[in-house]
């Protein structure tokens, strides 16, 4: 627990630094606003019609959920890697079964062409 006090201090220090930098911008920077400046920037041409918050292709969602599955797998692998010496062959077989089941899922993703990004 006391190991985490420096982490807390560090966060406070970083927030202090960012606050200082932003305060400098507020005091030093000019504030000359005009309607054109406040428009969305689209590389110089007039903003295209329509709202930016449109619906998105479902692909991003697929990628995110596949990421979560593999992220959880890795979260299980970290304690295994640390205890690996003590667990020995037994631990290895355990992890091989776990990884094999997930790699079956991986093959399914590839076979169905779910990652063909067009």
């Amino acid at each position, binding site marked *: 627990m006391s190991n985490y006090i420096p982490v807390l201090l560090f966060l406070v220090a970083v927030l202090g630094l960012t606050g200082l930098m932003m305060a400098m911008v507020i005091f030093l920077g000019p504030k000359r606003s005009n309607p054109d400046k406040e428009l969305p920037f689209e590389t110089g041409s007039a903003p295209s019609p329509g709202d930016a918050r449109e*619906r998105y292709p479902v692909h991003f969602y697929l990628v995110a959920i596949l990421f979560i599955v593999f992220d959880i797998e890795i979260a*299980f692998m970290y304690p295994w890697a*640390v*205890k690996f010496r003590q667990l020995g062959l037994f631990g290895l077989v355990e992890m091989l079964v776990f990884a094999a089941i997930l790699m079956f899922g991986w093959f399914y993703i590839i076979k169905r062409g*779910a990652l063909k990004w067009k």
Partner: protein
Amino acid sequence: MEIILFIITALIALASALMVITRKSPIASVLFLVLTFVCIAVLYVMLGAQFIAAMQIIVYAGAIMVLFLFVLMLLNLRGNQGWENISPARIGLGFAAAGLLLLVAVAWLKTAGSMEVAGLDPEMGTVSAFGDVLFQRFLLPFEIASVLLLGAIIGVVAMIKRKPLAELGEDKEGKVS
């Protein structure tokens, strides 16, 4: 010292949890949820469960919240679902559910007895202790978790690949190329 930190963190967690359900903009709700998760991770650290705390941040605050944000982009919620659209009956049901939950919580706390946090082994929450328990005592649940994850993969691929991709994402001019 510890109790002050606990009170501050717990208050931030509660306040941001309240913000999650009261904000109009769904994106703001998700970001307050991230803050709640970070506060819960701090509470885990204070209990000595360091590995769980890091996992909380990686899996919940880092990964699942990004998924939520992607879902919001998918659904196109414009933040106009205010309180005025909710019927009084639903609010009443909500309070009833909260009351029942409170009842269960009180009943559980009465039977749970007191927990001696101070008497726990300080090494209890380290990765190594976590690995010991996970890979020996909870071997079967660990292996079953992989089947659960496999189910998630197959489910999402089956749902998304039901139609050819061309029909799903074509309404966007700039797309991703």
